């Protein structure tokens, strides 16, 4: 799957366990007591109101921020830069290089030392951008840019794909295309952790839901039981659109 040389070390690092994870910024606690045990497959939705700490948790789990307390274990291994390299992150606002569509994919392949035009073309075809390979990436529409970011994230065959509200600024059609790709990716064995504040999207995608409120986990349950009975007052109020800010 990943580009690790030793195949015995190459088993997907997809099951996540965190213990009492905490994050403070400028003395203010942003996340506290995050203890999680996520299944190694499927789509986990991180949901919660604005400011709940969803994106911060995502950055912690990917190793882009260091926790103030607790630890993060991927398949029993403490998070380190090698694990980060075996994961991919798609941001809410796609960070595209000032290059062509193909150039954006080639960049990451070259960075990993494995240029492969056939592989690049296939990746673009999978997200429906094969006809736009020579277009400037920043001239694409919002939905196309996000699909390109997704193709670039997937070209390295990550163990884990993080998505931070990737459809927040997109119309329903573009959102539907992204969701389709994400579902296909999860079915192919990549663990997906998806941040959204859209309950409808969570219902469409989730295998399990982690509901965050004020920097803490209010509820973690499989999707079916979460949506039939959120089991937590804040989650219930959020789904009903009644959570006080």
């Amino acid at each position, binding site marked *: 799957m990943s580009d690790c040389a030793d195949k015995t070390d190459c088993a997907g690092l997809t099951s996540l366990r965190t213990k009492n994870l905490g994050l403070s910024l400028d003395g203010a606690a942003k996340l506290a007591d995050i203890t999680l045990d996520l299944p190694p497959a499927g789509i986990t939705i991180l949901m919660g109101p604005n400011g709940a700490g969803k994106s911060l948790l995502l950055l912690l789990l*990917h190793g*882009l921020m260091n926790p103030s307390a607790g630890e993060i274990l991927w398949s029993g291994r403490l998070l380190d*830069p090698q694990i*980060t*390299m075996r*994961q*991919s*992150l798609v*941001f809410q606002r796609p*960070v595209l*290089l*000032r*290059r062509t569509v193909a150039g954006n994919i080639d*960049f*990451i392949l070259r*960075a990993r030392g494995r240029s492969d035009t056939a592989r690049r073309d296939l990746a673009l075809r999978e997200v429906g951008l094969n006809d736009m390979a020579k277009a*400037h990436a*920043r*001239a694409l529409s919002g939905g196309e840019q996000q699909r390109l970011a997704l193709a670039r994230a997937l070209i*390295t065959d990550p163990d884990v794909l993080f998505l931070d509200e990737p459809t927040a600024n997109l119309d329903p059609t573009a959102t539907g295309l992204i969701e389709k790709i994400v579902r296909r990716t999860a079915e192919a064995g990549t663990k997906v952790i998806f941040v959204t504040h859209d309950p409808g999207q969570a219902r469409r995608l989730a295998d399990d839901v982690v509901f965050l409120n004020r920097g803490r986990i209010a509820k973690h349950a499989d999707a079916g039981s979460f949506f039939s009975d959120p089991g937590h007052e804040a989650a219930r109020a959020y789904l009903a659109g009644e959570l006080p800010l």
Partner: protein
Amino acid sequence: MDSAAELAVALMLSADPDLIEIVWLSLKVSLSAVFLSCLVGMPLGAFLATTSFAGRGGVIVIVNALMGLPPVVVGLMVYLALSRSGPMGFLGLLYTPTAMIIAQTLLIAPIVTALSRQVLEDMYGEYRSFFRSIGLRKDQTILALIRDARLALVTVALAGFGRATAEVGAVMIVGGNIDHLTRVMTTAIALETSRGNLALAMALGLILMLLALVVNALAHGLRLSTTRLSSV
């Protein structure tokens, strides 16, 4: 002024060999200095843009301050270093175009470094999370930034070129304004002015301004394309 303009046009049309020699040497010295400054200044600017270390703020302040280095001071420093009794006197470079290139490089390198740092730091702010996410090494980060900012960096280089072609103090001190050897546009203008050949000095000045105009028009065009690509 009219006679100076007429003389300038006449000089250009006549393809006067002396004038061509002076213009060519001016371009050679300035372009060489810009090339060397970019070679040193752009990677250094990229390093400063992407690296946190103790005293980074102080280094940036110093580099920014060096943009205002007085040319005569740089000329004097290079003169002392290259003069026969100086530490590099054995090289015999004083009053050669090489000495002029060294002096101009010292003048322009801080400009290129400081402006490159600013351009690349802005871009790095945008790319940083993505680069960290994919585990890009420092050298890969710097190369990627320089590649993506290439149009803006050409503008930086042109700003350095503009400063170099307009410079007179340093090249006068280390070059000596020797006819057919180290005479460039600016030193020729200074000489003709002191001789009282004001029309010729003005004509040379007009040609120099024309060169500066071409350089600035080029910079403006590149800046526009950079902006257009960044905003789409």
